[in-house]
């Protein structure tokens, strides 16, 4: 870690003296806000971090000197446990915005999103979301919606269409020849 500090040159701040050999926390680099300047970068840090920590961390591990640090702690909504139904407060999220000496533009993300948005995975996610929403709605109101009140599923829609067609046109077949023993006109042998 100490090797990197030499490359940064003369620093306008005094470095910390506490040696951390095996830090296990993870730092997330967050995408900038729409109008954020490229000389600013935001990171999600553990709650135990302070401004000096991120400054020294970025300098030693990423060779990125920092001019100023702004820290934000975002509180989160209460979370209800699914099993017990009890509410508990989720730990807040700490983010730190640092002012860089050299600008850094967030790299462009892939334009072709097909590998990440497969039809099957998207459908599964959507279904899961819908199911969770319905569960929450039932729990909130205490009323189970009847089948008529629910949104008609695609299968049911197709079935209805097919039934209407059948009533209008007729001509149902399962593409199999009926055994003559079951037909009304056929000569059924009596055993």
């Amino acid at each position, binding site marked *: 870690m100490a090797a990197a500090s030499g490359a940064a040159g003369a620093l306008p701040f005094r470095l910390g003296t506490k040696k951390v050999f095996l830090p296990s926390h993870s730092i997330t680099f967050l995408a900038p806000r729409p109008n954020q300047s490229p000389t600013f970068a935001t990171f999600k840090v553990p709650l135990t971090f302070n401004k000096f920590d991120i400054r020294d961390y970025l300098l030693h591990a990423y060779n990125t000197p920092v001019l100023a640090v702004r820290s934000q702690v975002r509180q989160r909504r209460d979370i209800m446990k699914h099993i017990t139904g009890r509410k508990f407060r989720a730990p807040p999220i700490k983010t730190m915005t640092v002012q860089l000496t050299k*600008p*850094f533009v967030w790299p462009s993300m892939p334009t072709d999103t097909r590998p990440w948005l497969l039809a099957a995975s998207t459908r599964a996610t959507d279904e899961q979301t819908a199911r969770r929403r319905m569960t929450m709605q039932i729990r909130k109101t205490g009323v189970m919606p009847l089948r008529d009140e629910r949104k008609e599923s695609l299968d049911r829609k197709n079935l209805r269409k097919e039934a209407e067609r059948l009533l209008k046109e007729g001509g149902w077949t399962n593409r199999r020849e009926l055994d003559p023993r079951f037909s009304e006109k056929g000569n059924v042998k009596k055993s």
Partner: protein
Amino acid sequence: MATPASIRPSISRIVNSTKLFSGANATVGAALPTTSPQRCSFSSTPEYNNRRPRRDNNRLRGLSSIYRSGTRFRMNVDKSEIPQPARYKPEVEVDPNHGLWDFFYSKDKALLTPDEDVEHGRAWVVEELRHKSWEDLHKLWWVCVKEQNRLVTARKERSRLKFTNGLDEGAERLAEVRKTMRSIKHTLTERWYLWEDARKLAQTDPEIDLNNVQSPFTPKDYLEEKIALDDNSQNAITEQAPSGFMAEEPRLARPEDVDPSTISPEPAKTQPSVKP
């Protein structure tokens, strides 16, 4: 009070119309002497008659700082009529050696596809790490930390872009990194206990002097040792009681090392009391 309020809009309309009239006169007067015809209008704001009159000349109608109404002030110009500002965004050149690139896999490809995410090896196991020095382990730890940061950044980016595929692949890769980190800690803990045991053993060893930093180990001559033992074998046994954790038993206590003829009856009696 009702009548003035109802009259007010009509007053404004009258005022507006008079303004329009005077404005029209001014434009006609200005246009006549000049010979060059002006194609576009002087101002981008539309004519007065196109403007929507206010109900009651109240500029701040519907605005509230208490009820968070937002900035929904009504302009006399339609939103579509507002001239667009020039799109000027300076092109920022990013240093190719910027340190923050380490949060991504490559500069042109910020996010790995799920197929690329799967292409990774296994974690280091403890047996492999036992043969590594502290410097190597420390370097490997920092490699893991940076990889972890890269993976959580990619995870956040996937959720930001609402990507549904590739979540499990990223999680598996992160799990492998965490496994390596756990193995490093396992190795170091093991090493620390071994060192501690060895130190305690050395404290009981007469051949090792821990205060002597230069050469703590001074092997004694076998013969010399034997003579010394013969001289005061009784004292040696009583002195070499196992004092520390995992301390080796005194060599004299082993039956195969001792000549049976030399054993005096006294040590045999003291032996059980020595053992813990």
